[in-house]
Every structure is written in C-alpha cells, then in structure tokens.
C-alpha cells in the first residue's frame, strides 16, 4: 500500500440497533449506544467491497445526541406463529466515519487485482452515489443513508462533551476468510468517546477475544476476467470513434 487511501463518509438514519449480545439471546434486543466496529465495517462494505480488500475503520464521530426509543415487535418463530418482544433502538442517529482498506492477504488468487488507485477511486465514487447496496445500521430494518463528507466538518452534539468511557463492548468477528484460520473468533474492547470521536483499534490489536466455534473457510478462487467460459461468444473489436 503506497498512498493513504482514507475515505470519509457520513451515514445517518431514523433508527439504529447495534444489538448487545447480552440481550440478544433472550430476544428482547437492546442497542449499544455507539456503533460497533463490525457494524461500520458492514456499512462501508455495503457501499463498496471486493474480496481483494479488507476495510479497516479508523474513527467514527457521533453527530447527534444519543437517544433511545423502544418499539414492540412480533418476531416470527421457525414453526410459524409469533412471539412478542420489545426492542430498544437508537433513534435519529448520524455518524461521520473515516476508514481505509488493506489487501486481504489470504486471497492469493486476486493478487493481480491489487490496484490501489482502482479500488480507491471506485470506493469514492460509490460513496458519492450513496452505495452499491442497501446500508443498514446494525439490523436490517434500520435503513441508513450514506453521503460523502469531510470528517471534521459540521457541529456535533458532543463537540465539548469531554471523555465518555464505555464498558466492555463487542468489537467484531474474525471470520476465516480474513483471518486465515478455520475458526470463528469474537473480539471485545472498551471504547472511549472523546468529544464525540471514537478511535477504533485495529482488529489485530484487540486483546480480549473469545473462541466461538470451528468454521470452515469457503475456498473460493477466481481468475477474474480470465475465467473459463466467461467471455464465450464475445469477440474483441475496435470501437469506431
């Protein structure tokens, strides 16, 4: 990686639900007050992602006051029928995020695709377009919207707040395709929000980890455009200017 390839964007929505695993098992989901690393990684991956790259979230800035709202839900059971539950969402959320990408070391087949400029410019363009796929803030029902921005612009509700420390929170999962091991690990950390800005630690720097289960990595290999049968029936020709 030669040049810094930071992207900055803002994401906002009416509701967000970054579920706390402690409340998830019972079904009465309650949201964390700040987004998890994994949720933000998911958002930028929805905007633009290729198997060649791995997104790393650097910082996030909370723009709006943290407010919660409870809503009742009718979650459906496997066997038909439903139960009732109460979910606690964050309401009226807005974040500014700064992220950059690195190469996925474990995809050797994609070495030819490791073109910094290409991915960087496409990512920037996709942020301007609002994303290739739907973005959602935590859970699927919380629609999010993405726009480009400069990280420190604008006034946030927490500009002069000072420091706010959070207790042990979920950071993200180590999936086999990015860690190289056939295991699923969960990472945790203790975030600190200083004047609204949360500095995320890198996944490899997380010290508190938990082994979840054995997981097989999907062995996808691709030859890119050279794939057999992809361009069958097509002939290269010059386009008349």
């Amino acid at each position, binding site marked *: 990686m030669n040049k810094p390839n930071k992207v900055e964007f803002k994401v906002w929505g009416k509701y967000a639900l970054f579920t*706390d*695993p*402690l*409340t*998830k*098992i*019972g*079904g*009465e*989901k*309650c949201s*964390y*007050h700040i987004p998890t690393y994994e949720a933000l990684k998911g958002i930028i991956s929805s905007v633009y992602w290729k198997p060649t790259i791995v997104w790393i979230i650097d910082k996030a800035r909370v723009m709006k006051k943290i407010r*919660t709202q*409870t809503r*009742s839900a009718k*979650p*459906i*059971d*496997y*066997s038909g029928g439903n*139960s*009732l*539950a*109460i*979910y*606690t969402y964050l309401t009226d959320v807005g974040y500014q995020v700064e992220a950059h990408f690195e190469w996925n070391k474990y995809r050797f087949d994609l070495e030819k695709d490791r073109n910094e400029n290409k991915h960087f410019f496409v990512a920037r363009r996709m942020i301007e377009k609002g994303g290739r796929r739907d973005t959602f803030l935590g859970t699927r029902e919380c629609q999010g919207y993405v726009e480009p921005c400069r990280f420190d612009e604008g006034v946030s509700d927490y500009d002069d707040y000072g420091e706010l420390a*959070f*207790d*042990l929170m979920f950071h993200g999962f180590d999936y086999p395709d990015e860690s190289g091991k056939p295991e*699923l690990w969960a990472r*945790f950390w*203790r975030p600190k929000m200083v004047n609204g800005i949360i500095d995320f630690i890198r996944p490899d720097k997380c010290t*508190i*980890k*938990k082994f*979840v*289960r054995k997981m097989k990595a999907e062995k996808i290999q691709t030859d890119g455009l050279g794939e057999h049968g992809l361009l069958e029936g097509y002939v290269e020709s010059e386009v008349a200017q």
Partner: protein
Amino acid sequence: MSWMHRLYETYENCKSMVGKIEDDNQVPLLPICHTTQKAQIEIVIDEDGNFRRAKVIPKKQARTIIPCTEASGGRTSGEAPHPLCDKLQYVAVDYSKFTGSESYYQAFSEHLSDWSKSQDAHPKVLAIFKYVQRGKVIEDLISCKILHVGVDKMLLKKRRETKKDKETIDVFDLLPGRENKKKDRIENWQADAFVRWIVEKEGEECPKTWEDRTLWNKWIDYYSNKKNQRGLCYVTGEEKPYAEQHPAKLRTDGDKAKIISSNDWGGFTFLGRFTDTKENNTYQTCGIGFDVTQKVHSALRWLISRQGVVFYVKDGVKASPALTIVAWAVSGAQIPKPTDDAFAILGEENLVSDESSVVSTAQELALRLKNKIAGYKAGLGDTSSVVIMGLDSATPGRMAITHYTELTGSDFLERLEHWHESCAWIHDYGVIEQKESKKVKRKYVRFVGAPSPKDIAEAAYGSKVDDKLKKATVERILPCIIEGRQVSRDIVESVVHRASNRVGLENWEWNKTLSIACALYRKLNEKEGYSMDLDENRKTRDYLYGRLLAAADCLESFALSLSEKKRPTNAARLMQRFSDRPCDTWKDIELYLTPYKARLGGRAKKYMDVIDRVMSMFDSPDDFTSNKPLSGEFLLGFHCQREKLKPKKNEPQSIDEESVLDKENENI
C-alpha cells in the same frame, strides 16, 4: 451494555448491606447463590440431629434467606429442590404417609448428602442431614401440634374447628392457599409449608441458619466449585465459570420474567451463524460469569424492592407486574425517586400541618422542596453516577430494558429540580395519615411542586384508566423528567379538557385535576413564565376570563355558605360551557349572580371589585366579545384568582374545603 457493569459496581459498593433484612416487606441485598422465601415453620434441632421443638413463624418474621441453585432459584413447580430449606414435600420422608401424594425427598436428600460429604460441608448442614434422614419430620411436627391430622391420620386440608383463641396464630393462618380447581376455592394445604432450621449447640452464637454468614460462604464455595464450563465473561472480560441459568423473581416474588434468558431456541433471534443447540449449549453467543450474574440480579432485585416503582397490568383476574422504573446511585447513596411527586420527596416531617397560624406562601413551599433536593447533593458528591432504568415485559417469561440513562449525581438532581420547578403548581391533595388511638385520621396538606407521572396519567384519562394506557403515559412522561424534554401536547390537552368539565368529577378529583392541569399547562408554555401567584398585570384573554369565572364562583359560593345551602354554584355548573363559549356563558353567569349580590349586599364588594377590574383589563372589546374557546390558560387564571379570594383563617369559610372526600391513596 453498561447496565450490568453498573449493577455489578453497585453490588460491590453495597457489600456491607448484604444479608441485612431491614423491612419484612422489602427484599434484602442477597449474597450470591441465595434467594429469599417466606417460611412458615421453624424447626429447632441440636447438633446431633435430634428434634427439640418447633414453632409457627409470624408473618412479620417470615422472610428467610435460603441457599439456592440456579435451577431451584427459577423453579416453577415440582422440580429442583433447594439445597437446605424447602417445603415439607421435599424435606420429609414421611410425607407420602401423611398426605397420600408423592414426596420429592429423594432429590433433596441426594443434593444434601453430596454437600455434607464435600469439603465445604458445615456442621449445621451435617446436623440437618442427620435429622432429615431419620424421616420423622412430619411426625414430630404433629406431636408438637404444629401440623394437624384428622381421624384418618392424614394431614387436614383445612381447619377443622374454629380457633379457640383469636390471638395465637396457627399454621392455617400463614399458609399460601392452593387453588383446588375442582372445588373452585382456595384450600390451605398444610404440606405447602416451608421449613427453616435452627441448630442449637453450646457456645454457638448464631443458631439460626439463615443468619449464619459462615454457612452462606460454605454454600457459595461448594456451589462455585461445581461449575465446570468456563470462558470469557461478556461483562468483566475475564475468564470465569459460566452461569447456566439466570435468576428470575426480579420485580416481585412471583415474577417469572428474566432479563437474560436463552429460551429462544425456536425463533430466528440469535442463532444464524452460531451452531449451539438447546442440548449442546457451548455459549457461543454470549457467556456471563456465574458470580457476576448472581450479583447483578441480586442488586437489581434489592433496588427494585427498595426504591423502585412497579406498575401492574391486570390480565384477567391476576395483576402481573409490567413497567418497572428504578433509579439508584451506584455508590449506594440515597437519592429521591424521579417518579415521586413533590409531596413524597419532601417527606412528612417537613410539611407543616394546617394547624399552624402561618400560612406558607407558594414561594416558601417551593423553597423547602429545593432545599430537600439540595440536601441529597452532599450524600451523592459530584462524580457519583446515578442510573435510571426502566424494565418492561411483553411476554411473562422475558423482560426488556426499555430505558437506560446514566447521569452524574449533580446532573440528576439538577434535572429533577428543574422538573419540580417548571412543572410546578400549588397542590392541595397531599395526604398525611395520623394514627390517633384506633382511628386513622387523614390530613390534607398543601405542597408545591410537580405531580407524579401516575397522577398525571390518572388526571389525563380518569382514575379508572386502563393499566396499559397508564403505563404508556408514565413511559412518555419519564423522559420529560430525566432528559428535560417537553411534555407532549396531547397529554396536556387531555388533562385541561377533563379539568374544564367540573360537573363530571367529584369535588376532590376535580381539584386535583385542576392543579395538575395548571402545572402541566405551565410546563408546556414555559417561555410564558406563568407565576403561581395571581398576576394582576396579565392581559391575555384566557387568563382574564379565568379570573372572571373564579370571582363569580367565589361570590356565589360565599352566599351559599352563609345560607348553609350545599348545592354547586352556577359557575361550577357552567364551567364546561364557559370554556367553549366564554362570552355568551358569562352573560348568563352574571345574570345568575344578581340574587346573590342582593343577598350579600356590602359583603359582595370585594368580588365585584375584582370583576370590574378584570372587565376593564380586556385589551380590546373584540377580545371580550369573541366566543372562541378558551385554552388551558383560563385554568391558571381561575386557580390564582380563587386562591386570592379565599378567606384567611379568621374569616368564615366560603370555599368547600371540607368536601375534599376521603380517597384511598393507592401505593405508587
């Protein structure tokens, strides 16, 4: 989320209060692996397991701290036995001989024997085990005349003959009734009696097993050693033995709802990428340390019992706990309840009764409240956190955390003070109950401050409001108190509307609704800056109309009181119409006043003066002649003017103060 951390911290900070039973109605802060249960029978044995005596426990001393396992702590019916103290069904070998139904003694004795053989056994445990093994529990109780048998030598199902002596209590008085579905009535079933032990030994300082801390610790050690699955605790981040089940019984003793429950194996909630099954649960999703969850739930249960508010919802016949709001300081210091009204915060000692000749002004009463709240500051300190938590359940088995706010102590007190200042009015419905010989006398006391959310809900929707609506309204008002949000317009409109309909309510209820409406209207229009005293310079149409109505009402009421008639005044009857069409109705009211003016003669002067003055204050004739309906502001004018026109102590009563009827004050 941080609620678990805060509760854990609170437990650690309040360690000195563990096990202290302050009030028999309240749940104490329990040591881990223990729960409380109401016991009915107390058996005294010696260190060798010989029966000495037994007695029936009076209700006030019934609450007992007993050791429990995860399974027995959350048991519903006939399964996991408690390790030491349990019902006769578990403890007595001869149960089936005397009742004819199955005894659960086997499971109980297995566990107890395991404990007595382990390295964490306690001499008391050995004694109890010896006694229980002899199998004469019920026999001994019968010979002591604690339990009663019939002619067939089986335990009686209900009392056979009436008690000779009304003072002594027997076991039938204390037993929880068991519903006999066939006969459709409650039966006192002696076998449901819960037993607790006392082991007497020479030199033993603490024969009572439920107060013996060494016994508690032995049980905790023994049970902790039995846990084998370990892993990362999601609360502390350390490796600890995992909890398999989490405690229930948080809001009330019979509450089966759990905050952390992993019962959703049949839904789409949390499986997905995790491969755990109910049979093979390796806690992939989430694991919590065993002692952590015990401490957290124990702290929560203690706090709810001590300083929480539980709202019940009627589900058919039963009332089950629903919304629960609890606020506490993490350091364990005392804080005022956010759901209290100003009267409850002040406390009875601070209020001056009507006897005194000094009539406190609104300012003095407000100042007293401010000082009381400021008094908590010293105990809290600046940096101590205050947590406000709201819990609710959609299904009887699970609870959700609907609110969670963490504030610094000073922030919390500031916001509470602001609430009581901005949403304040003069209220006259504070009740003090005084016991004089055998009667309970009720005194009504005036206080200044905000009404409680419960009272607001009742004022907005009626005293017979549906439980769910009451609960929802309280939930909506809570952010106004805690986060300083503005009250919702619809609640205010609803209260104002009900307060305008004077004939539809009884006198005490109307007065209460009136002052609550004034408080809420004042809060909604904070920027107008209404004062609680009469504002002689205010020229807004609605305010002046309110004053007019008050003057007419007081005049007529005074005249009626002189002639000792007790009918409602015309102004009272026409209040609803007045608020809809003030100008037309005023014409009628003024005409109705003529005979009373004539009757009073010179004594009517002060009321007529007010009416004249107010009439001249209307800015333009259009203001007066327009029939536009009045907003809630007229209630403010009405209340202030009525206060001003109220006679001082030496003058004859002209306002119906006596007709503030007795009302059962429900527990909040």
